[in-house]
């Protein structure tokens, strides 16, 4: 294929027309004047070129249809991606997530202000000064009042007093440690002196300052032994 004037042309056609042109030109010139011979050449050239053009197949169509198809397909792909973006943006708008992204600090400030206003006792929602009204209009008592059962001693305790109770009951506090040490030291005393201890409140007070917080049962043992000897 050869491209002449944007048209694809068969090589055979070109050669054929060229040959025709040459053949016609080579005819013995019956016309004498140069002007007429020039005109003859000119006409022959025009004839041959037009023959070439007629015989050629226009190549534009193939290329253009191909590119048209490509553009259409590209447009198709782009459309589906646009729909994806639009549906995601629609979801964000409907769920209010775009507000959360940009204006979080503004919302935080506003909610803090609202909370301050709500906890202000001069507020109209504060008719009884004990309870705070939250943003849903609910009130909560200052101490949680659900009743639970302690797993250590088996007593029923209020939820708001549960942690302090566990402290005393399980061993962080003095009395709890004394309880534990009393049971172990009572065993020792029984072994050593043969008499169980009944009173431990007097020496618990006196040994309070001596005791270090969080000491183990061994140290407690020593202390109680010492205080026992004191007595």
């Amino acid at each position, binding site marked *: 294929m050869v491209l002449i004037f944007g048209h694809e042309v068969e090589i055979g056609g070109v050669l054929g027309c060229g040959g025709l042109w040459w053949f016609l030109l080579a005819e013995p010139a019956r016309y004498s004047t140069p002007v007429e011979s020039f005109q003859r050449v000119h006409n022959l050239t025009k004839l041959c070129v037009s023959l070439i053009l007629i015989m050629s197949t226009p190549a534009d169509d193939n290329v253009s249809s*191909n590119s048209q198809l490509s553009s259409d*397909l590209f447009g198709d792909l782009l459309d589906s991606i646009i*729909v994806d*973006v639009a549906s995601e943006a629609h979801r964000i708008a409907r769920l209010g997530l775009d507000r959360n992204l940009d204006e979080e600090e503004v919302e935080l400030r506003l909610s803090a202000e609202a909370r301050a206003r709500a906890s202000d006792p001069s507020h109209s929602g504060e008719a009884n000064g004990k309870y705070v009204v939250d943003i849903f209009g609910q009130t909560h008592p200052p101490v949680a009042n659900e009743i639970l059962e302690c797993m250590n001693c088996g007593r029923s305790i209020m939820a708001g007093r549960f942690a302090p109770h566990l402290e005393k009951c399980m061993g962080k506090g003095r009395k709890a440690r004394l309880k534990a040490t009393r049971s172990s030291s009572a065993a020792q005393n029984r072994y050593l002196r043969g008499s169980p201890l009944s009173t431990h409140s007097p020496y618990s007070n006196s040994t309070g300052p001596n005791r270090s917080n969080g000491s183990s049962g061994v140290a407690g043992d020593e202390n109680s032994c010492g205080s026992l000897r004191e007595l």
Partner: protein
Amino acid sequence: MLIWLLSGPEVRFWRASIKRPPTPDAEDETDREPTIQEIINIKLIESGEKERLKELLRERLIECGWRDEMKAICRAHARKKGRNNVTVDDLVHVITPKGRASVPDSVKAELLQRIRSFLSSTAL
């Protein structure tokens, strides 16, 4: 008895009541030749090339920030219209002209190149 029921003039009425016009799909398929575009589309989908091209285009558009631009336009439009009044259709109509125009030339050229090479490789 069945044979008696199936014979006789009443059957014609029955058959007429059961007879329905053929579903449109069947009619259309037999009347029309699938166009070149449809053939290409089917070939694209079947070979999995369409999915690959779509992923490539999506990746390129994210890289060049086109996606964020479109999302910002949607957000602004939604804020203007009122958050609960927007529809997907609405947003699509808003984005489509701007979106088509603002695809970077390099991205478009790359995709067109790949599409054309696929077209030539499928030997129309």
